[in-house]
């Protein structure tokens, strides 16, 4: 009788330990994102001074107390920029719908940081971002101020001359998560996917 009893006790202990571990992961502790890459430790953002789509200053303080998803792009980009903003907007809407009380649900701000301040004035950004619905806003500013924020986040951007005096801008396609303490916490690498964003955004927002 003794060996079977010991085996059962051992199995029970293992099950309990696994259960506690699962509970810790899923409920009381922090879950790990499945798609986004967490930074080994949060990165404090430097001071910067940009301008939002309403013409108001947008600085590091503007990110405090909010969950923010940043995408660097420009409004003359017809493909990946609107496609990514659309994916973010759809993911945000899905999170709102999943919430018991969508009106007061904690949802992230989606910020298009334009790397084309020459053409993307606050007026242009307001009209453009408005199309993607609530929670999507445009921000830009002097190139040297964009460089401070982009540099801290490892975002690359470069103007590329095109035909007829036009130009395009190469830019990192990553989506950056900034936590409520205005710290860089995680990054989604391209290509993006609505289901992956909708699954991981709440996980990132729950990080301590």
């Amino acid at each position, binding site marked *: 009788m003794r060996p079977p009893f010991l085996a059962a006790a051992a199995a029970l202990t293992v099950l309990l330990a696994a259960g506690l571990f699962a509970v810790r992961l899923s409920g009381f502790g922090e879950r790990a994102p499945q798609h986004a890459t967490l930074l080994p430790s949060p990165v404090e953002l430097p001071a910067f001074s940009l301008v939002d789509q309403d013409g108001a200053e947008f600085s590091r303080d503007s990110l405090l107390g909010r969950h923010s998803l940043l995408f660097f792009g420009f409004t003359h*980009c*017809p493909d*990946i920029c609107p*496609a990514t903003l659309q994916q973010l907007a759809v993911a945000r809407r899905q999170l709102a719908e999943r919430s018991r009380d969508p009106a007061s649900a904690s949802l992230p701000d989606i910020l298009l940081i334009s790397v084309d301040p020459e053409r993307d004035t606050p007026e242009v950004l307001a009209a*453009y971002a408005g*199309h993607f619905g609530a929670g999507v806003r445009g921000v830009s500013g002097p190139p040297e101020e964009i460089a401070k924020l982009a540099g801290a986040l490892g975002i690359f951007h470069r103007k590329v001359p095109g035909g007829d005096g036009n130009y395009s801008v190469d830019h990192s396609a990553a989506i950056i998560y900034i936590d409520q303490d205005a710290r860089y916490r995680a990054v989604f690498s391209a290509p993006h996917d609505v289901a992956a964003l909708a699954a991981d955004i709440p996980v990132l927002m729950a990080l301590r």
Partner: protein
Amino acid sequence: MRGLALAMLACALLLGACRNEEGPALAASGLRVLAPLPGRSESVAYLTLDNHGTRPAIITRVTSPAFGKVEMHETRIVDGVAQMRPLESVTIDGGASVEFAPGGKHLMLIGPLRELAPGDGVRLELHHDDGGLLMLDAPLSARDTS
């Protein structure tokens, strides 16, 4: 004389059939022409091209009566950086397909020639290197954020 004419007609039909058999036979599906976003004068179209023939089909130019210019572009993610570059031509090998989809190849529609609203019909003209033309029509659709 009549016999000769019939024979020539038969030959012409036969040659035509052979040409169709071997030449590119391009079919488009899933065409989506998206309306320009507020304040923007450029937009984008996506589609899939299937070449049911045996010879490659080469698209060298795209035009539209609704837009001043249409360019074939490709977005590539290189080391995490999105690069949009114009394409001189797009080749669809015999029996193969080429997809124009978000984040990849796309048709950039520049400068609407008239006021456009979702639902308006837009024609796209895909010009082949051999002088052939594939005309496609689709209603302009809004970007769906639902």
